[in-house]
Structure formats: C-alpha cells, structure tokens
C-alpha cells in the first residue's frame, strides 16, 4: 500500500520541477531490494497524476539488481532477495545496489 504514497511523492516532485509545463515521460530507478513494487507504482501513477501536468505521461521504470559487498571476504555478490548471503558463508555485508528509489529525469513538451 505504501506505493500509493510513493506515487504521490513522485507526481508532486515532478509537477514542481515541471513548473507548469506538460510532462510526457517520467523515468524512475527502483532497486529490487527497495521494498517497493514497480507494478504497484505503475498502477498508482496514472491515478494520482490525473488533473496534474503529469497526467498521461509515459512511465519508464529502470529496475536495479541487488548487490552487496561481503564484510568478511570483500567480494561483491548479487543479492536477488534478502537476506544477503555471501558464498564464503558470511551473513555480514553492505548493500551497494538495489535500494534505489529515485526519479532520474522527465521529458517536457517544448513550448511552441
């Protein structure tokens, strides 16, 4: 359910940045370990953008795979899901990718 609030934040931030111009594309970066479902964000995005300059904009979501660095052996390894476990057996690691929840860019219609 938090994807609804997240989508509202996205629309609010993009609307502010657009300064009244129409937005035709929004590009997001969402990590697979961010705790946010991309499908749910896409679902909510259209609804919450109604009546704003973002209404009707295409939504592009770039998903980022999870990666962690092992605290024991120093290796960087893929983390398809939590918990992260290094092949060396250690459970101690730091996530280096996969927690992103960012707005990368938007495309605005040129003023004629």
């Amino acid at each position: 359910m938090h994807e609804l609030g997240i989508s509202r934040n996205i629309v609010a931030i993009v609307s502010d940045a657009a300064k009244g111009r129409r937005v035709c594309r929004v590009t997001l970066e969402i990590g697979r370990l961010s705790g946010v479902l991309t499908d749910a964000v896409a679902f909510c995005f259209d609804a919450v953008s109604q009546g704003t300059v973002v209404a009707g904009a295409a939504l592009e979501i770039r998903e980022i795979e999870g990666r962690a660095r092992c605290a024991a052996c120093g290796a960087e390894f893929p983390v398809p899901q939590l918990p992260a476990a290094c092949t060396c057996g250690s459970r101690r690691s730091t996530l280096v990718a996969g927690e992103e929840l960012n707005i990368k860019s938007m495309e605005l219609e040129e003023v004629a």
Partner: protein
Amino acid sequence: MCEVCGCDSETETTALNLQTGKARVLERDLHAPHEHVRPDGTRYVHSHAHGPGDAASKASPPQHSHELVEIETRVLAKNDALAARNRAWLAERGVLALNLMSAPGAGKTTLLERTIRDLKDERPLFVLEGDQATANDGERIRAAGAPAVQVNTGTGCHLDADMVAAGLDELDLPAGAIVVIENVGNLVCPALFDVGEHRRVVILSVTEGDDKPLKYPHMFRTADVVVLNKIDLLPYVDFDVARATANARAVNPDVTVIHTSARTGEGLDSWYEWLGESTAPAGATPAS
C-alpha cells in the same frame, strides 16, 4: 474508498492531544495532486492494463519535440529531510525517540503500558500512538500514566516524518525523556519511512511464525532490537525461539534479541536494561 488504489479522499489524518482533548487535521501537501473525482462529480475509475511494456505502449508518438530534464532526486528525499529535522530537534532536547513496530496484535501497546507503570519513577515516557482509526490505544497509554498523542492516519498504512513532527509538537517533552512512536501495526510499509527515531524496536510475538524475520526482511534488517513477546504462551504454540533468533540474525547479524511477556512481566528486566542503556545522541543528527 477509491476503486483505484484504496485511497479514501474523505479520510483525513488527525492528531489528537489526549491531555487537552484537542484534535487537529494535518495538512498533507503531498496529497495535493491526488484527484479521484472528475469535474462532473463522477468518481474516476482506473481501467488501464499495467502489464510489462505498458509504459512503452503509452508513450505518445512524438508530435512535439521534447526537452529532457534531469531530476536525480530520491523519491523519499522530503520525508527523509523532515525525519532528519525531527531527529535533530529531539537530540537538541536530549530526548530519545524509539520507533516501535510490529504486526497488529503483537503487544506493542501492552508492552508500553507495562513499561510506563514500571518506570514511572525513573524516566519520563511519552507516547505518540499511530493507528488508522480510534484513540483506543492513546487512551490506554494515558490510563497507564503517560502523556500521549494519538495520530490517526485515515487509510494510511504507516506513520511518516510529517505526521510525527505534528505529534511531537503536541507533547511537551522534557530533557532526558523517552518518546515512543508506536507505528501502525504493519511489518511492511513502516520499514521504509524514517520518522526521525534514534532506535528501531520490532516486536515479534510467539503466536506468529518464527520465520517472520525471513518473510519481512526489510523490517527486521534495520531493527536495533527484536523483542520476542508473549513468551508465557510458549508451552501452547509451535514457535521455536532458537529458530526465530537465528532467522532474525540471518537478516540482521548483530541485532539484540530480548524475550519478554508483557502480560506476566517475565523478561522485562532485559527490556528495561536495554532502554536504560539507550540514550539520546548529544545534539548530533546520526543517520539511522
């Protein structure tokens, strides 16, 4: 309730000061662009398919030339900035803030009631209660002897930094106090939202599954302490304490695990010891 996303635009977020009885509606500017009712008064019903590739199919053919604008902003930047402000505000006052989270019914309010009664002569405790509706828990806290503010989130599934800022305004917090922010009962959404706490406390009760830390890793991996509650019921349930502890440490290797029964009082000494060792950071604003 909206068919699209479960949002009820008529439901407001409110903060009720249980000392004064005054309630106020929180201004939620993030909700401003939210619109589900068409100008003619009909409710907007979402009917698009949202499968993979939908974004591409929705991209309108470029009849106009488009200007690409880099934004490079974290979606939760505003919440996180507000949370940092809450944390600094609390630290300046020497107040320790705990974010207390669990599934509904794990015993958050009961643990607090007992803690308030047992520590009333030692350390002033204040509670910010988060629930979708009712002031029931806030009233329980008041009856136990601590000042409380009840924040009702409407349909919201978690507290955010803005709601907590409004709630903190209502509490007259003295130096050395502990403010417990009892989040909405939910192991999913509250994990994502920093509210400005100094420590995260997650309760897991033995009437739940001992694999909960693996099922909800986002919640458990950021916890400072996991409280295994309702241990008086262990003889009657299949919950395996050793397995639950191993599961918690699988996602959070250094987490402190405390066993309690808020009902009988068993194990509460360890909880009070942990609380006693937890102090507000001096003036700084640590990232949590």
